[in-house]
């Protein structure tokens, strides 16, 4: 009691002192003269030149790791479209010299605005310790620094984590490099296409197949908790929504409904799956609580309502419906009330996905024989088409909501062969990249950041 009072008195005194000092300082700083005010309203859009030095290693083995880590970081940053890693050949200061404070002048000369340095060390216990520092070349200071101790086998992950840190420190936004993509790997002729569930790191490495292709699988979706994937599988020609636990390999049917279930998607907390269910010729949207298995119907309309996706705050669901004549996007409250149409453009809209940062909804649009991947704000404004093609579909958001992945099918060649590839594109629409996969790929689903 007594103590508390004393503490608060002291605190008050401290505050008083601070505010006095602050006031005095401010008064001194305030310049007496009139100031020239200049508005800067124009800039340019170009990737930030950044130098990623090989990480220092004392032994050849460590040097190799240090080199590889730097390569992965630079590749991540480059693919984001926001950074332009500078050719290492231009570097003046070498990794060993960089262990101390950089000679910033050496880096300014080559136009680097930021510099990443670090070291890799294999410890006696067999683990790998990777340190990195991010430097502001013009400000001549350290922006951030971390060290990680890991089993050497996961060095790529460490590199992705470092790239995320650099990205976050320089853009103010979360990164997305330490994440994975699950997708449908396709092979075989068009009429007997084999489809397998596959997973890989966001940059295409550490690729592996999750199913053997004996059953048709579609629409994989990551749980926000990362451990689980839902997808649609046709077993004995019956499509059902399955849940696959990546840790245990366990798989289960998500409820056995009388009709067909499809288009499953997790709620942001991972506890609910929202999906559509076709019964007696009518398709409606339902949710299922994964813990209680309780099923709730959200839509009641004779039209087809499908492709639901939650907003990140779980308060709303976007879906598509042909209730207005053509297939358009609608937003409703999570309990099914307050349905509002948000898309009004020509053509048909499908597969809406709410961005994890909440500000946009991505979708597929078909109009005039062309497919588009587009985005719009949740109220329907600001609609833009980011990518287009003969067939582009299945947008999925990177965990930070800055980048989308989707797939693109090229028109069949003379022999009827069709190629389907995964791509990423950022929100500016200017940075489209192919994601290399061992065989054809479709229906990507981006994981959240690995926790």
């Amino acid at each position, binding site marked *: 009691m007594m*103590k508390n009072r004393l503490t608060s008195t002291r605190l008050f005194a401290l505050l008083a*002192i*601070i505010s006095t*000092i602050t006031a005095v*300082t401010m008064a001194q700083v305030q310049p007496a003269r*009139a*100031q*020239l*005010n*200049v*508005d*800067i309203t*124009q*800039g*340019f*859009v170009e990737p*930030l030149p950044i130098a990623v030095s090989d990480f220092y290693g004392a032994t050849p083995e460590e040097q190799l790791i240090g080199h590889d880590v730097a390569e992965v970081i630079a590749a991540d940053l480059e693919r984001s479209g926001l950074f332009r890693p500078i050719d290492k050949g231009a570097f003046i200061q070498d990794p060993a010299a960089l262990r101390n404070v950089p000679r910033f*002048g050496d880096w300014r000369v080559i136009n680097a605005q930021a510099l990443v340095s670090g070291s890799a060390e294999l410890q006696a216990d067999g683990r790998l310790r990777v340190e990195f*520092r991010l430097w*502001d070349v*013009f*400000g001549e200071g350290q922006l*951030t*620094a971390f*060290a*990680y*101790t890991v089993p050497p086998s*996961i060095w790529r992950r460490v590199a992705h984590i470092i790239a995320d840190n650099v990205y976050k*420190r320089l*853009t*103010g936004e979360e990164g997305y490099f330490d994440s994975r993509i699950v997708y449908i790997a396709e092979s075989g002729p068009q009429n007997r296409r084999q489809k397998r*569930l596959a997973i890989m790191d966001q940059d295409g490495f550490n690729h*592996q197949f*999750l199913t053997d292709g*004996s*059953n048709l699988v579609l629409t994989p979706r990551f749980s926000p908790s*990362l451990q689980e994937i839902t997808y649609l599988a046709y077993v004995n020609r019956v499509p059902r929504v399955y849940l696959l*636990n990546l*840790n*245990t*390999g366990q*798989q289960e*049917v998500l409820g056995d409904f009388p009709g067909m279930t499809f288009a499953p998607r997790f709620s942001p907390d991972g506890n609910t799956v929202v999906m559509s269910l076709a019964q007696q010729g009518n398709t409606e949207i339902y949710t299922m609580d994964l*813990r209680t298995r309780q099923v709730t119907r959200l839509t009641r309309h004779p039209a087809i309502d499908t492709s639901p996706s939650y907003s990140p705050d779980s308060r709303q669901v976007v879906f598509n419906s042909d209730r207005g004549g053509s297939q358009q996007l609608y937003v409703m409250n999570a309990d099914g009330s307050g349905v509002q149409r948000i898309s009004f453009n*020509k053509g048909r809209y499908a597969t809406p996905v709410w961005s994890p940062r909440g500000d946009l909804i991505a979708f597929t649009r078909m109009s005039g024989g062309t497919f*588009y991947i587009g985005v719009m704000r949740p109220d329907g*404004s*600001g609609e*833009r*088409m*980011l990518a*287009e*093609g003969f067939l582009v579909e299945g947008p999925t958001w990177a965990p930070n909501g*800055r980048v989308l992945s989707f797939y693109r099918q090229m028109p069949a060649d003379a022999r009827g062969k069709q190629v389907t590839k995964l791509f990423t594109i950022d*929100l*500016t629409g200017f*940075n*489209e990249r192919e994601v290399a996969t061992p065989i054809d790929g479709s229906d990507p689903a981006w994981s959240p950041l*690995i*926790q």
Partner: protein
Amino acid sequence: MRNGTIFSILFHAVVIAALAVGLPTFVSPLPPITNVPVELVTLAELEAATEKQPDPEPEPVAKEEAPEPEPEKEETPPPPDPKPAPAPEPEPTPEPEPEPEPEPEPEPEPEPEPEPEPEPTPEPEPEPEPEPEPEPEPEPTPEPEEEAKPIAPKPRPKPKIKLAEQETPKEEKPEEPPADALTSILRNVEKLKKQPAQKAQTATAPKVAEQTRPKQQVSRIAQEGIARAIRQQIQRCWRLDPGAQQAEDLVVEIRITLRRDGTLVSAEVVNLTRMFGDAYFRSAAENARRAIQACSPYKLPVSEYEVWRVINLKFDPREMFGT
């Protein structure tokens, strides 16, 4: 009690000293580093330690060949495969380490909360280091290439797919004024062809907005000339990130002080509080400051030095974003 008092006195002394004297500049060559043991765990460990999975039974055996228990009875090896799949997995281990974010420590790294605590910011402290740019030499502005290019909405990587169709013009969008405006820097493949006119317009009208104090002796015209010169120089160095969240709201004010030779003495972000509370604002502010630093030295008429010795710069991306 007594300890508390002593501690409190010491703490106050430190805080007051910090406030009065300025934040300590650390002498050690390298700022401290945050150590993050990323204990990535093998699958086995992970399962042992994991209980957070909703699934009742971890079923260590089953996973060996249970990937698809019933939809597909095949002996699919992939998913269960212990090594690869789990490897990238998160570490549910109770350790506090997983992501690097947690303890920022030395730098104001992850968005520092508005603590009054002094932090050894590597940022441009006005006093401690009088000149961030020790070399006043007229180093050519670091980005020669930039100067060549038009300032505005220059898309970077070439849009590979843009030509796909010509039908676009016909497509009338009922309501999308914002989209149109945004297309200058945010691409809309459907509208590409219409761009040029708009672009040009955006690029040409820099819009003068500097206020001058009437009492200044220098004529308004001279001031405007100087403002224009500064604006032109800085705009060549200001790199924008159009995809940033609410990029159009990130207006940054920075007060700069220049030497007679046009080199930079200091560049202070006016809204310091927001620097510490808002990571987006901080990177926007730092980005603007980098532009200022990269552009130094400034070429301005020495005869009017008193006019441009201290300048308030307002970086306002709204026009470029069309809002």
